[in-house]
Each structure stands twice: as structure tokens, then as C-alpha cells.
């Protein structure tokens, strides 16, 4: 297992290298300039422009720019064009909110996805199965921004419930427990909307493997022993069908973080998705490159964890 982790980490380094090159060239080769004052602003002297270019290494050839960006990224010296703060600290201050949001979304999509998938597999071929599939595709087809707007307007305007940001403003909480509950409440709604697609895809994967599992001999044995259908489904069949679900966690992560751009923007949630959106608007090249790098590293980490979990829950899986 140790050698598996080492080899995976080595592969991750290769992938991160490719990713950094791709994201660097995407942001630098596209037309337009990163100048915060606009390309042709006559009020800016040539000297200021030259200093700016020198500071962000824009006067160097591309391959040197890339090397310098990567050096600065790893030494923590990479600075945002927008506010001249270190990019790493801009990202790190958003990281907890992003991790909390995505973990909550994953927990929600795993639990409801499992219920929906088991339900559809249990009634395979009947109308309940068709209903389960319909619900799953409905969740994928719901435009996130649209349903978010509907929900935000209904709750904020209709009921006066505060849901934007990470906590309610202007309210003193008697203790940390109450303020923790408040944070959780602010997390729940964006996480649920973010999780809709995950619920759908998890339930589809689980349905397919559950249908296979339910045809196995040990299921017939379990049923003929007189075990209740719930025990047969959730203990015997689900345990043997859980692996694709866990492997799927790594797969949904990029979709979650990508989808979070829109949802974090609407909810004014201070996560990395909104940071990315702001960086795009400001053409903040260093932040964009660093952000793609960090997100990719998170995704690779998620993949590694889901592989290790697969091996932990299923002894048949060998980490090779």
C-alpha cells in the first residue's frame, strides 16, 4: 500500500506539471492584457507600465514566465495582480469554506444518492424504477443558477430567512454552538443545490451495480433464510455494490468545484469558486494559474482517498 501511495503521488506530480502548463498557457496566450488600468489608458506613463510588466515578469519570454510563476507559487511569493497580496493566502482563506461546502455536498449526494439508487434497483423494471430515473435526470437537468434564484428569492424575500454568506450578520450568538448551527444552516442550502447532480449520478451508478448484485446467489440465500428485504438490500446487496459509489467521489469533485462557481456567486459564499470568478473578471493571471493548480491538487487528493477507501471497504480490491 505504501508503494501504491508513492507511485500515485509520483503520477500526481506529473499530472500537476501538465495541468500547470495547460492553465498557464490558457491564461497567457488568450488575447487581452492583465493591466488593472486598461491597455490604452493615456494617463498611465510608460514607466509605470514598464514597472508593472517587470514586477509580474511580463517582460520575459513565455517559458521564463512559466518557470517564474511556478517558482513563486512554491515559495509563496506569487502575488495577485488585483490587490498585490500573496495568492497563496488569498486561496488559503477561501479553502476552509470550499472544503466545508464540498464535503457537505458529497455527504448529501452520497446519502440521498444511495437511497434513490437502492430504491430504483429494488423495483427494477417497475414504475418506481422509472420514477427514480426520472428524478435523477430531473436533478441533473435543473439549471443550478435558476433553481438557486427561485429558492433564494423564496426564502429571503418570502420568509425573511438569512441564507447568504457564511453566517447571519448583526446577530449576537449566545455561545459558539449557536453560531456553529448558524454556519451549518448557511452551508446547507448551497450544498444541497450543489449536491443535486451528485445525487443523480451516484444513484445511477448504484442502481446499475445493485441490479447486478441482486442477481447473485448470496442474495437468494439471504432471502431464503427469511431475512427481511431491508436487511437483504442494505446489508447484503449494498455492501457489495458500494465500491463504484466510493470511486465516484473522486469523479464528482471537479464537477462540484466547477458548479460551485455559479452557486457561490449567487449565495455570496466566500469559496474558491467565487474567487475564481472574480479572478476571471479581473484577468488576475497569477490567481487563475494558482487556483487551477490547487483545485487539481485537491481533485488528485480526492481520487487517492477514494481509491484507498475502496480498498478499505472491499478486500477484493488490490492497490496496484
Amino acid at each position: 500500500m505504501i508503494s501504491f501511495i508513492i507511485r500515485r503521488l509520483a503520477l500526481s506530480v506529473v499530472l500537476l506539471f501538465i495541468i500547470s502548463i495547460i492553465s498557464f498557457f490558457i491564461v497567457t496566450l488568450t488575447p487581452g492584457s492583465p493591466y488593472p488600468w486598461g491597455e490604452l489608458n493615456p494617463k498611465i506613463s510608460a514607466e509605470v507600465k514598464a514597472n508593472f510588466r517587470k514586477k509580474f515578469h511580463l517582460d520575459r519570454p513565455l517559458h521564463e514566465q512559466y518557470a517564474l510563476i511556478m517558482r513563486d507559487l512554491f515559495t509563496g511569493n506569487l502575488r495577485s495582480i488585483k490587490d498585490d497580496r500573496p495568492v497563496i493566502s488569498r486561496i488559503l482563506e477561501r479553502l476552509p469554506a470550499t472544503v466545508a461546502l464540498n464535503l457537505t455536498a458529497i455527504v448529501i449526494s452520497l446519502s440521498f444518492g444511495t437511497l434513490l439508487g437502492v430504491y430504483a434497483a429494488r423495483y427494477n423494471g417497475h414504475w418506481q424504477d422509472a420514477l427514480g430515473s426520472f428524478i435523477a435526470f430531473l436533478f441533473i437537468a435543473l439549471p443550478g443558477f435558476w433553481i438557486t434564484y427561485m429558492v433564494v428569492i423564496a426564502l429571503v424575500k418570502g420568509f425573511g430567512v438569512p441564507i447568504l454568506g457564511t453566517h447571519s450578520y448583526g446577530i449576537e450568538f449566545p455561545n459558539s454552538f449557536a453560531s456553529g448551527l448558524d454556519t451549518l444552516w448557511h452551508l446547507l442550502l448551497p450544498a444541497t443545490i450543489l449536491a443535486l447532480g451528485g445525487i443523480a449520478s451516484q444513484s445511477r451508478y448504484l442502481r446499475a451495480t445493485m441490479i447486478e448484485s441482486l442477481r447473485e446467489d448470496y442474495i437468494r440465500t439471504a432471502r431464503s433464510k427469511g431475512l427481511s428485504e431491508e436487511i437483504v438490500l442494505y446489508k447484503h446487496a449494498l455492501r457489495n455494490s458500494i465500491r463504484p459509489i466510493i470511486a465516484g467521489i473522486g469523479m464528482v469533485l471537479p464537477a462540484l468545484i466547477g458548479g460551485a462557481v455559479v452557486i457561490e456567486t449567487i449565495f455570496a459564499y466566500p469559496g474558491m469558486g467565487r474567487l475564481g470568478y472574480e479572478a476571471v473578471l479581473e484577468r488576475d493571471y497569477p490567481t487563475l494559474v494558482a487556483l487551477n493548480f490547487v483545485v487539481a491538487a485537491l481533485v488528485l487528493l480526492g481520487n487517492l482517498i477514494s481509491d484507498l477507501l475502496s480498498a478499505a471497504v472491499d478486500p477484493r480490491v488490490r492497490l496496484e
Partner: protein
Amino acid sequence: MQGVTTSSSESPSFRVLRRFRSNPVAIISVMVIVFFALIAGGSLLLSATGHDWPCDPNLTNLELKLLPPSPQHWLGTDNLGRDVLSRMMHGASISLTVGLIAVAVSLGIGMVVGAIAGYFGGIIDQILMRAVDALLCFPTFFLILTVVALLGPSLLNIVIVIGLVSWTGTARLVRSEFLTLRETEYVKGARVLGQNAWHIITRHILPNAAAPILVTAVLGIPDAILQEAGLSFLGFGVQPPQATWGNIIADGKTYLLDAWWLNLFPGLAILIASLSFYLAGDALREAAESRS
């Protein structure tokens, strides 16, 4: 065993079609898709001949702004007094165009990469699949947003970028189909006969992998439609005054409390159109996978 004789005389594609047609969900979703396609084509045709119906989607009339649905304006008017129904009919053609062309781009790249990786294997396969792995680590929507925002949003840029970003799934699928099919007797036979790789790939392997590829294509269309809608919503979609379902919602968000129709109807259109494609794709997959 009665079915064996009939199904063996039936061609595989006919069998898939027969099973597809016997699924009511498939029929309904195809009808909805055809309905949207007719609206899209019809509105383009009418506006090209100068007979916009119900009216010109860009005709502004500030005296008629933010009117609720009425017999004159079935789906109401927006903040500039433009007819929402007309704008949505033109939006249909944008959504379908984005869906179809983006899928064509991603299918083209995915099939070429997957076929090369799966057929030749070895070091080529390793390199191509590592590139796919790297692309899969990017948050898809954020990547599309970045490139479209930096390149400048236009219909062409949007479809190309969505296509360029979403071919990885197809490539993986085609590769795995090729890995299986290249070991079959008929492919080995073709190789023994001395046929070249191009001939074997296009004549022997691809036709046998057609069904799963078609399924990913159909399921890719709503993905692209939803991504374009998301871009439009953030202001990086097809640009105004050209109407799209996403930018009607984006324009209407300021007036949401006063003008719910600006949000509800385009949102429902996106939802129903993508849902129909997903359900049709899933029904197609079921028809292709089933043995009877």
C-alpha cells in the same frame, strides 16, 4: 427461445430502434425535442423572411415593459418591453445549436483520441490517457468560463470551448470499446488479411462501437446546453441583444419579484429541453444494452 429466430433475422440497429420505440418515455422525449427543434427552425426561418411571429424578438417598447403574461404577450414582456415568447423562440435555436455543435466537436476529438489510444496501445495510449487524466482534474465549468471570458464570448468561441473541454469522457469510452473489440476474431482476421489500420478502425471496429458512442453524444447535448445557460447567466454567454434562455433569466434577475415570468419560463425551457435529451439518451442506452 422463440425470440432467437426473429431477432437473428433482425439487424442490430433495427432491434435497437424497435426497443427504443416501445419505450413511452423515449417517444415523449423525442417528441419534445422535435417540438423545440421545430420552434428553433421555424423562428429562424420566419425572421429570415422578415415575418417574425409573434413579434420581433428585439423590438423594444418601453410603454409595454414588464407586462405579465396576457393574450397579446403570452409569456409577458421584459424590462425593455420585448416579447418574452419571441425571445425564447430565438433562444431555442441558440441552445440547440450550442448543444449539437459542441457535441460534434467533442465527439470528433474524443473519437480520434480514443481510437488511437485504444487501437495502438502502448506508449501512445499512456501519453494520451495521462493527458485525459490531467484534463479531468480541471473543474470543467470553471475552465470553460475562464477560456470564454478571456477569449471573448461569442457563439463560435462558446461551442468550440465547450467541445474542447468535454471530449474526455468520449475518449475514455471509445478507448475501452476499442480495447475489447480489437481482440475479437473478426478484427484479428482483418489484420491477418493485411488490411491497414484505418480500414480496420473505420470498417470493423467503429460500427460495432456505434451504439455507446451515440449514447454519449445524446447525453452530451444537454450538458452543453446547461453549460451555455450557466455562461449566459454569468454574462459570458452569447451576447445581447441576441436572446438566449440563459440571458433572459440573467436580465430578469433584477426584476425577479415584480416579473417572475422572466425567470420561470426560460428556466422551464432549459429544464424541459435538457431533461428530454437525458431521458432520450438513457432510453437509447437501455435499448442498445438489452439483449432481447
